[in-house]
């Protein structure tokens, strides 16, 4: 299970790579934000509360103070009050629906003395603590389906409240707890099924119904062949079948392909009944049935359930050829253009024309990564991604080195949250992920976001320090 012991000198104190990468990201983030909002007037903007960078700097100061404060608090505080904090998070999410201010169509913010506070960010931390506490309890076993349901509900409630704001992006972040659940031992069958179904949906949207059906049938055949005999000959046969059906399908023999694949499936089924592998057969048939069902309803629900702006986002991601370059595709084109124009070395700090001239939408918040891509080029992009990887890797190491489940799960929760934000956010700026409005951790403008990430990581570092004593 564990990854191995860290070297002895590191275990004596703080985890230097984790701290370094964390603070490097904070500094790069602040500089990028400065660059994105810089309009040539100079450094004094930083000290003015009327500018975005000025306000962000105040938040950053507050975050650093909190960071230090947390390092002085005993980590047990967080396990003791995990549910209280979770309750507070839920309370705030309810309150914001009633008392919050609406910005750009979402009621996600409290406005306190000119600073806005976003409860959904806080609830990520609260939920992470609560889940860790739940799964860390000796009476709870995630392999028990009832207990797993409780954990899912704890994640589902805040996600649902955030959906009501509505803020689909932040709500989606809660799916990152699936990583924590997986580490805690959740049944991998769920994950395989989930992945298969998501693949079904994506293929259905990109290629349409019949290629996706062929895909599902092929996967089912592959699974059956694997069950019957997992040796290399069967694998080769399977690839032959897959290749043949692809070729036939491409050349227009659609219905014959379906019939042949169907016959193969029937043949295998008979064989499996003879071999008395009925239970596995039922499972695979159910899998195929659900796949077919999902494939069939994907396009229908895309057109009838999703709102036009949500359809647009999916289209921009998966079917850009359906989109207007000047319309829904505009933002992503500008974003890719900014990053692409950076080349290898970038245009240089404060010299990014696209970001300087406001071509990139939301360039301070969700699209802050464009500034890095444009001004620092591939080197900057590579560097930032590597820094996040180092941080994640060190967190996983810390998690594996603790003996306490609460701490381990909390750390995996944080890693999942950070990973989800980073992958979706950066992926979205380059067009490989749908445009979901979530910030890039430690970099995007947004006071609550940076404060909460500081808190999360401070708690995590504090928990790690505990080992030393």
């Amino acid at each position, binding site marked *: 299970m*564990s990854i191995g012991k860290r070297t002895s000198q590191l275990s004596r104190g703080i985890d230097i790579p984790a701290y370094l990468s964390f603070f490097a990201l904070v500094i790069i983030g602040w500089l990028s934000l400065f660059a994105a909002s810089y309009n040539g007037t100079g450094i004094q903007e930083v000290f003015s509360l009327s500018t975005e960078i000025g306000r962000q700097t105040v938040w950053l100061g507050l975050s650093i103070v909190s960071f230090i404060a947390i390092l002085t608090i005993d980590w047990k505080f967080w396990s003791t009050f995990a549910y209280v904090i979770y309750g507070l998070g839920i309370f705030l999410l309810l309150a914001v629906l009633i008392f919050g201010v609406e910005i750009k169509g979402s009621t996600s913010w409290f406005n306190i003395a000119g600073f806005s506070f976003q409860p959904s960010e806080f609830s990520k931390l609260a939920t992470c603590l609560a889940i860790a506490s739940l799964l860390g309890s000796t009476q709870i076993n995630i392999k028990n389906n009832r207990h797993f349901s409780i954990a899912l509900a704890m994640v589902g409630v805040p996600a649902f409240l955030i959906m009501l704001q509505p803020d689909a992006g932040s709500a989606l972040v809660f799916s990152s707890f699936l990583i924590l659940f997986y580490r805690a031992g959740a049944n991998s069958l769920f994950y395989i099924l989930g992945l298969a179904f998501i693949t079904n949906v994506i293929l259905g949207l990109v290629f349409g119904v019949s290629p996706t059906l062929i895909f599902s049938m092929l996967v089912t055949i592959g699974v059956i062949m694997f069950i019957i005999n997992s040796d290399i000959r069967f694998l080769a046969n399977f690839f032959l079948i897959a290749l043949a059906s692809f070729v036939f399908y491409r050349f227009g023999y659609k219905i014959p392909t379906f019939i042949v694949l169907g016959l193969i499936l029937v043949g295998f089924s008979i064989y499996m009944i003879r071999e008395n592998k009925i239970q596995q057969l039922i499972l695979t048939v159910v899998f195929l049935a659900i796949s077919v069902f999902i494939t069939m309803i994907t396009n229908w629900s895309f057109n009838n359930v999703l709102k036009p702006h949500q359809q647009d986002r999916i289209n921009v991601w998966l079917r850009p050829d359906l989109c207007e370059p000047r319309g829904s595709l505009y933002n992503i084109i500008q974003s890719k253009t900014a990053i692409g124009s950076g*080349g290898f070395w970038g245009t240089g700090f404060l010299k990014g024309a696209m970001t300087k001239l406001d071509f990139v939408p939301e360039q301070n918040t969700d699209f802050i990564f464009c500034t890095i891509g444009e001004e620092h080029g591939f080197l900057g992009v590579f560097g930032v991604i590597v820094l996040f990887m180092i941080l994640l*890797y060190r967190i996983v190491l810390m998690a594996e080195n603790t003996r306490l489940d609460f701490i381990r799960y909390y750390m995996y929760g944080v890693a999942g949250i950070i990973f989800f934000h980073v992958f979706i956010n950066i992926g979205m700026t380059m067009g*490989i992920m749908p445009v979901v409005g979530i910030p890039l951790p430690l970099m995007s403008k947004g006071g609550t976001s940076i404060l909460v990430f500081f808190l999360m990581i401070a708690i995590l570092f504090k928990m790690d320090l505990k080992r030393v004593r």
Partner: protein
Amino acid sequence: MGRSRQILLLFFVSALVLIAKAAQIQLFDDKYEKLAQRNTLDQHTIYPTRGIIYDRNNEVLVYNKPVYDIDVIYNQVDKKMDTTLFCQLLEIEVDVFKKNIEKNWASPKYHKSIPFTFLAKVKPEVFAKFQEHIYRFPGFLANVRSIRSYPHQNAAHLLGYLGEVDQITLNKNKEIYVGGDYIGKSGLEKKYEETLRGKKGVRHVITDNLGRVVESFNKGELDQKAKPGINIITGIDFELQKYGEELMQGKRGSIVAIEPATGEILCAISAPGYDPNLLNLDEDRGKAFDELRDDVNKTLLDRTVLAKYPPGSIFKPILSLIAFQEGITGPYRGVSCPGYYEYNTFRYKCHDHPYPSNVGIALTHSCNSYFFDMIRKTLEVNGYNKPGEGLQMLDNYLNKFGLGQALGIDHPTESAGFIPTPAFYNRMYANEVNGWKSTYVMSIGIGQGELELTTVQMANLAAIIANKGKYITPHLVKSYNDPGMNIDPKYQSVKDVGIDEEHFAPVIRGMENVLNWGTGTKARVPGVRVAGKTGTSENPHGEDHSVFFAFAPIDDPKIAIAVYIENAGFGSDFAAPIAGLMMEKYIHKKISEKSKYKEEQVLSIQLIEEPEI
């Protein structure tokens, strides 16, 4: 593999995916770099000022006047703006406002964040009012551009007008024009388009996402200044042009005057004329153009170069010169005229006049019989049965006189006129067993029949006689206001029509007497010896055309002129006094008391209804 490793693998693979994608768009695809440049680097065209056109005395004939285009950025428009005030200031209807601002946003032509033209060609006086209030209307910007303007109401045909460049020209000259540019469509504006238009400049600027200029690119090192168009000095005498247009009011026809020594065109009047300001590129232009185009008098037709008229009796001096040069007849030969000319079955009426004992008397009184005789002898120079050879000889001379082909003046459209060739008559009389004879076509001897000349050709004939057989191709432009540019050498070389100088004296004497006691007494200019010839060209469709051509003074010709009045009757009654007044105006710079009555008479004549524009 443990789950912690699987999770790490997920992180690692995801990071690789992101890095690979970044490498693709940053390192392997230069599409984005170019896109970024297009996004931020903008080339602004600087329009050159168009060349100004002057007359021979440096009077401005055309200059440039600023007009304003109002552009708008839709997203910046205040939804609560005072539309009523806005429309009042710009003098437009609220409907127009709505129509102009709500574009088809699905079309790639328009974008809510990019400026587009809201209202084009706003007049300076309207704009001045609007400018005071423009701060109230965020999102609206003004761009200045220039249009042609005229400090007078004259010379419209000759100057020509501008219009938007058409697709064909655009396709051929992609590096010069873009859609919506203006180009000379007629007259001097068209002929001298290349000289007048100048060269566009370009300014490389950095723009922000709203298309607003932030700064110039590379400190303007790549910028090119616009090269203004070259000013043109024409040979036109504006005072004469204006006076001629005044005299031609209420008439249809044309006047062309040439300085014989240089071939410079002094005036080119096509009547009825119109105010060139009407076809200015402001918002009323379309309507005015349609009305001019559709009006019964064909006002847009430039009659000086496009209308082809039978010359009538002014052809007689030319025929005489050719006959003398060929030795077919001499100036002192007399021809009896019993009041008609009779030859076999041909009989043509003449009028009552003294016996034409020489060519001078025949010209003075415009005896038809004399010239029927002369044309017959000319055509039959190689025998009665070979009139084609005689005609070919005649045509060769006429070609040298600049007839039957475009003169080559600097006008974009010029008619060739028409002179009948032997082949033409062979076709026409193809059914005649023995072919056609000189008697069939004798009416060309008095400038009738199939002969057709443009007014500028007629004026040039007067100049040829004034120069005693020499001429320079008539032209409008005298020089350029640019030391490096010279006018076309063909407007400097002297042409010879192949008539010996000695043959001119008797003809000129006869033409002088036309004014002394002949048919053209109304063309007299006080104190100046003038040679002229009237013509009345028969018009089967209506009233005869009245024509006169002349030059003066005889000893030192300063002006050669042709006046053609459509459907006016005798040449002596209409064309002659107008030609006289024009010559007097040009030579004396004013009209004497003695001639005032003529002026009043001419001005009072209304032959057509003026179009109401």
